[in-house]
């Protein structure tokens, strides 16, 4: 069988970008057999330069270099920035995997816009551009006849946007509640299970690599808020922006409040409530499907025909998030 060549550009080679490379190395044969496609990564962009090889980058070698912190030693390394790579290298799909910046969505926003305008499909895990400029980006994609896919922006590996699109078409979504941030869930779980303070639980989360050195986005509910905005737009057509979301984080929750909740057969969880456009700590009964522990994410959809559906899984991690990214890539390949 003659394989169709599909070229990828990866922007951002952090944990998620590397996860994509690892999964592609592992699943290349599967994609060839089932989709008749030869997926080649022809450009990888980092903050200070890029690797470009029109014949396909050797991902194994690149992963070894990046693990040794020697990416710049790659024979094709140049100081070309991502935006210039988008302008000069024509690929079929651009994976925009840079970190979220909720202030202005940059640099992801300009990467996505430029890629779409140049007729390249975009698959992204970057929440901020979608949370801030959802309709504008959709319009650019539509007018350039390309696709913008973003399953990985909400809930890591959890299939939620594609679940609605491909399995719940007949349904009207009436409400969505979710635990959309693994770090805050890990901290609240530790506080409940071990009776420790927020500071101790946070340090523990940082120790095991679940929380970032600067956990503000997670603890203050900003990350959850961005995801609420994306879900409101993509699943409920609410036409909102991140700035419309009312956000209360978990930073002021006391161990006493956690104990009180426990005494009344409840737990405290940071909940993204899409109908109310709100992020806030809420009391959840212990036997409720949203009572998931550790760094897990859970999303409960109430739909008019299917009624309640809850999806639970890993909301972060390079390999896990790659699952959602490949779901989008493969749906573009058809």
């Amino acid at each position, binding site marked *: 069988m003659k394989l169709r060549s599909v070229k990828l550009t990866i922007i951002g080679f952090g944990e998620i970008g590397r996860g994509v490379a690892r999964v592609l190395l592992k699943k290349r044969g599967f994609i060839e057999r089932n989709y008749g496609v030869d997926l080649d990564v022809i450009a990888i962009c980092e903050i200070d330069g890029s690797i470009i090889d029109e014949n396909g980058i050797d991902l194994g070698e690149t992963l070894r270099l990046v693990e040794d912190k020697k990416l710049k030693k790659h024979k094709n390394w140049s100081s070309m920035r991502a935006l210039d790579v988008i302008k000069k290298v024509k690929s079929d799909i651009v994976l925009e995997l840079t970190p979220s910046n909720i202030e202005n969505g940059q640099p992801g926003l300009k990467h996505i816009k430029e890629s779409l305008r140049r007729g390249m499909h975009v698959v992204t895990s970057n929440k901020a551009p979608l949370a801030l400029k959802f309709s504008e980006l959709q319009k650019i994609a539509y007018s350039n006849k390309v696709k913008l896919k973003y399953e990985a922006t909400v809930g890591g590996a959890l299939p939620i946007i594609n679940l609605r699109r491909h399995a719940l078409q007949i349904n009207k979504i009436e409400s969505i509640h979710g635990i959309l941030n693994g770090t805050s869930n890990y901290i609240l779980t530790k506080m409940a299970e071990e009776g420790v303070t927020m500071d101790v639980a946070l340090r523990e989360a940082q120790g095991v690599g679940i929380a970032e050195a600067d956990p503000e986005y997670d603890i203050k509910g900003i990350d959850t808020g961005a995801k609420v905005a994306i879900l409101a737009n993509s699943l409920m057509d609410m036409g909102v922006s991140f700035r419309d979301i009312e956000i209360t984080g978990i930073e002021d929750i006391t161990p006493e409040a956690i104990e*009180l909740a426990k005494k009344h057969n409840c737990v405290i969880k940071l*909940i993204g409530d899409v109908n109310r456009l709100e992020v806030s700590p809420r*009391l959840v009964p212990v036997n409720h499907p949203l009572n998931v522990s550790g760094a897990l994410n859970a999303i409960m959809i109430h739909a008019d025909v299917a009624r309640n559906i809850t999806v639970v899984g890993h909301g972060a991690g390079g390999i896990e998030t790659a699952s959602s990214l490949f779901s989008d890539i493969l749906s573009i390949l058809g």
Partner: protein
Amino acid sequence: MKLQLKDVPGSLLRALEPVSIHGGNIIGVLHSRGEEELVSVQMSFEIKDQAALDLIKGDLKKQNIRVSEILLEGKRYYSKKTLSFILIGHVIDTDMRDTVDRLNEIGLVSDMDVVMPSPEKKSSVMMNVDVDDKRVKRLNRLINEICKEKNFLLIRSLEG
């Protein structure tokens, strides 16, 4: 119980059936037929408990029979809902009596659990407030208002 029935044969019988099915003892039925399409019916009955009343209401709803009012022992009956929430802040020092009195104006504070680790630290208070179904929104607005005014962190229940 005051009902609005369609003026068609058999509708009164359909309205009475759920009462007898669920063990109610019908005491009287007042049937006032006007010129409108709907007929006002007031039926008085005895039932053993609220669960039976809920079943009757459910059956009437299934038949699209509109219940306009329910009086229980002469007083307006309401479907009670309990809102549970936790307040974190200086709940005691910011006039707790005032907080409870204001909540009682709309609902009824039926349970309260207070933990105050030390006077200078924030306390955590779990409250249950019973409220008429129709006044839930008003109560939620008041809770938000109190929290803003007294600088409390509010942890509402998932359903609240």
